């Protein structure tokens, strides 16, 4: 009887069972095999592993509509045969004869027929069943090997996929993008064709992560990925470069540069449209935009990393413009970038060389008495001495130098506060304020640093105030609220700076433990002649009064502005009308005077 050479266990058994039925005039054939705890056929190797005998295959599948696999009579017969430990056993039941034969180390095969098999035939089957057992062993080993190979292949595939794809979005990752870009660069150079790389950065994405949590942020990133895939060609590569940065490689844009430029611009427009569609996540809509820069390649000896860097720079410029544009890279951008890098390097040296000094702009009440001062940074460097902080503070922010500078400001201000206290000048002088950047707020130990500065200098906490701009507050609400509460607990108060320029929710404003709102100078300038500014200022003052917060107007430069503010009910002021920022020694001198002269 043929066993066949199929290496699939079930197929091999099926062939053998069919031949057995035909040759031995059987009604049905059933195979029960030893299985492991997972139900997978295995073999008894006397290692003591726990095996159960399970129904494997019946031909035919059923009898009078009842599946043989569930036939209790058959299962009992097999169990009794195994208990008997004999090679074969015969049972006559319901005008049928059942022959059970052991498959050494593998299980039992049952032949059902209407006649009992001749003992000579039964005997002649012994070597066949031994051979069948060997075939079972070979099939099980083969299938196990196949499973292992499949698992390994899957694992390798998974690893290869993971190595080349971003886990969150399943887009190509930086590595794969780099490979594709290198290939494309070679291709374009060889065939004198153009390609392009678009660098995309989502605007204000950090706010969504901070306010709504990373779950929402992740869903938006996934959705952005899908949208970018949907508007690109199959040969393009859409990659997640990191965080909220995406890169699209357009590898084959033909031989005409103008046409290539048109395709890139078209793609950029589609990207803007796609990203700006409201993200509807569980009923809540989120709107975001993106900034984009790109470079068309190849250009001279440019490498793939140059292309990515240049597109990134162009994106950075586009972001700074705050417009809905995709900027093409221009070498000027690199120059500007290099200048910024040099600036950052000089800033770093400035801390080390003690080139910074704190100036203070005094703050006044309605009676023109100094009630506080805001600390402002000045840089004594021959190269930059006329440079406004508005130029170098953003550079410091970008390079994380702001953290070192912030620490320096905090400690220096605390030292000055201690001097004021030592000179008995804190009676009418209520607060010395310092500005805090968004990055400082994200420092886990920022509160501890403030406490440490106060402790080291022994400055009075109740005379220190922290100014946080409305925009920084909005982008880091949770950290800001925690910090403000902690500071309030030790007596340090907080002001909301540049109020009116951000988009803070009134609900949140109510929960901020701030003691003061500072009206942004943009609403103070020409307030006496600008009805719109006046309305906004009136609203802010009313808001402050309702929330029991003090109101201070920044940038007061004229008597008319002051008069208008006084008429609106604002009681505290700061600006050139009263005093420019002055060195600490000058502030001391001013505080020793009982009253300032009104500026004409």
């Amino acid at each position, binding site marked *: 009887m043929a066993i066949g050479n199929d290496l699939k266990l079930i197929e091999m058994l099926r062939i053998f069972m069919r031949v057995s039925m035909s040759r031995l005039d059987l*009604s049905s054939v059933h195979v029960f095999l030893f299985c492991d705890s997972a139900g997978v056929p295995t073999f008894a190797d006397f290692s003591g592993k726990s095996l159960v005998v399970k129904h494997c295959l019946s031909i035919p599948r*059923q009898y009078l509509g009842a599946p043989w696999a569930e036939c209790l009579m058959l299962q009992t017969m097999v169990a009794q045969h195994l208990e008997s430990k004999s090679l074969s056993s015969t049972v006559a039941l319901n005008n049928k004869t059942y022959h059970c034969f052991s498959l050494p180390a593998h299980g039992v095969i049952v032949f059902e027929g209407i006649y009992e098999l001749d003992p000579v035939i039964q005997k002649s089957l012994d070597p066949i069943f031994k051979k069948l057992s060997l075939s079972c062993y070979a099939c099980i080993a083969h299938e196990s090997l196949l499973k292992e190979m499949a698992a390994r292949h899957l694992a390798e595939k998974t690893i290869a996929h993971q190595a080349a794809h971003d886990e969150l979005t399943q887009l190509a990752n930086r590595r794969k993008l780099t490979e594709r870009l290198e290939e494309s660069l070679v291709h374009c150079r060889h065939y004198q064709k153009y390609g392009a790389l678009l660098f995309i950065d989502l605007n204000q994405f950090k706010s969504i992560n901070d306010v709504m949590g990373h779950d929402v942020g992740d869903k938006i990133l996934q959705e952005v990925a899908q949208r970018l895939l949907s508007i690109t060609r199959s040969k393009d590569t859409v990659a997640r470069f990191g965080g909220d940065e995406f890169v699209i490689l357009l590898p084959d844009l033909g031989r005409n540069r103008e046409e290539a430029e048109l395709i890139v611009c078209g793609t950029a427009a589609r990207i803007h449209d796609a990203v700006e569609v409201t993200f509807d996540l569980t009923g809540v809509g989120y709107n975001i935009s993106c900034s984009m820069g790109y470079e068309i390649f190849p250009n001279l000896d440019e490498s793939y990393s140059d292309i990515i860097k240049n597109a990134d720079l162009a994106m950075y410029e586009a972001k700074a413009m705050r417009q809905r544009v995709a900027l093409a890279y221009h070498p000027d951008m690199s120059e500007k970038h290099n200048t910024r890098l040099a600036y950052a390097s000089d800033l770093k040296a400035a801390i080390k060389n003690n080139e910074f000094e704190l100036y203070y702009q005094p703050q006044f009440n309605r009676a023109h008495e100094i009630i506080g001062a805001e600390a402002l940074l000045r840089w004594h460097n021959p190269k930059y001495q006329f440079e406004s902080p508005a130029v170098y503070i953003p550079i410091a922010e970008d390079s994380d130098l702001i953290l070192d500078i912030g620490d320096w400001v905090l400690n220096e201000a605390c030292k000055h506060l201690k001097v004021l206290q030592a000179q008995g000048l804190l009676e009418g002088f209520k607060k010395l304020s310092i500005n805090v950047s968004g990055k400082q707020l994200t420092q886990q130990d920022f509160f501890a640093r403030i406490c440490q500065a106060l402790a080291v200098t022994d400055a009075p906490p109740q005379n220190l105030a922290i100014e946080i701009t409305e925009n920084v507050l909005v982008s880091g609400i949770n950290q800001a609220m925690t910090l403000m509460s902690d500071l309030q607990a030790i007596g340090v108060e907080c002001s909301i700076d540049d109020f009116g320029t951000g988009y803070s929710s009134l609900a949140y404003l109510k929960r901020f433990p701030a003691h003061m709102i500072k009206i942004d100078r943009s609403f103070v300038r020409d307030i006496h002649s600008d009805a719109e500014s006046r309305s906004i200022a009136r609203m802010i003052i009313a808001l402050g009064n309702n929330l029991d917060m003090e109101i201070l107007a920044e940038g007061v430069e004229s008597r008319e502005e002051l008069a208008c503010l006084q008429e609106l009910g604002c009681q505290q002021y700061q600006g050139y009308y009263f005093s420019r920022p002055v060195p600490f020694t000058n502030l001391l001198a001013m505080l020793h005077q009982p009253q300032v002269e009104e500026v004409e």
Partner: protein
Amino acid sequence: MALVIQNNNIYASPPVWLDTEGTDEQLGLALELLVAQGANSVLVFACSNNKHSADRLRSLLGACPVPVFGGIFPGIFFEGKCIDRGSLLIGFPFAVQVDVYDDLSRAKLSIENPAWQDGDKVGCAADLMVFVDAMAKTTEAFINTLYETIGGGSHVIGGGAGSIDFIQRPCLFTRAGLLQDAALVVKLPIPMRCAVDHGWEVLDGPYLVTEAKGTRVKTIDYLPAFQVYRDSIERVTGNQFNKNNFFEISKNFPLGIVGINEDIMVRDPIQRIKNELVCVGCVPANTMIYILQGRRKFIVEAAFLAGEQSGLKLQQLSHKPLGMALAFDCISRSLYLGGDFSDELLALSSGVGEGKTIVGVLSIGEITNTARGTINLLNKSIVVGQL
């Protein structure tokens, strides 16, 4: 057209309409009349010489409100007469479930195929009528898969439909029209009992089939199959093969596959291709075969025995029978007996006994279950089912 059987009670004896013209119109009219008489399903036996239009039949059969099943065969017989033009329509008082398996030649005939996993098709136990397109290339594989799927315990009767020019045409009746390259499995709601016989005797052998593939026997006793077959027949009977008379001789000397219990299953060698014998039905390698011969007396007696045995089996049941016998008689037996075929029908009638309606077809391959339960495709045999 004539209503040839009609009792007042359809449950006592199903009405049978005989149309000797073999036209669509007559067949459609008979269908309508049977439904009007209360038939809940209709069995149609038609002759391959009829002039049927597949389009016309599609609309006629589609309009029938009850299941229709059956086939087109080389000949049909009724009341001892065999005709090669016309139709027999039998109206049953019960409804039947007709399962259609189409595209047989291209279908993956495996128990693992989803088409064979349909619980409604294969799940319940019932006695079956099976009709297959005899020209489908996988008829025997279908029969084997059917058994592997539904299992033993069912009593099965059926046969291969088609015509003896061996050109494949639509030949199976369903409500969807005439089908080809298909099979019908009809589940009966009442019990049926079957018997089979052939009457062929051992002439020479045994021989061992040493190489075979499907229906082609390549070597016997390690020699070219045709050479062994030819030498045996020429030596024992004196017949002489030439280039043109293979089937003329071979139809009288089929092969017989010997089972372990010495039952013989007949295989009809219908063609010689070079030195290979092509049979109707598979001949597996390593099987023991004999060359068989026919004697008219025993061939005819086989029909009697099949009729008698099926009746005896039915008598063992407690239910009231319908009084009907269905016969699938191999066309090659009719060819072999020639003018004496009426003797076979007489013997069949005698075996079945009086008072029963006998309808039958000349089939191309017969289907029935063996005593051990398996369903087999047979050659040169007569299968009788009584219900």
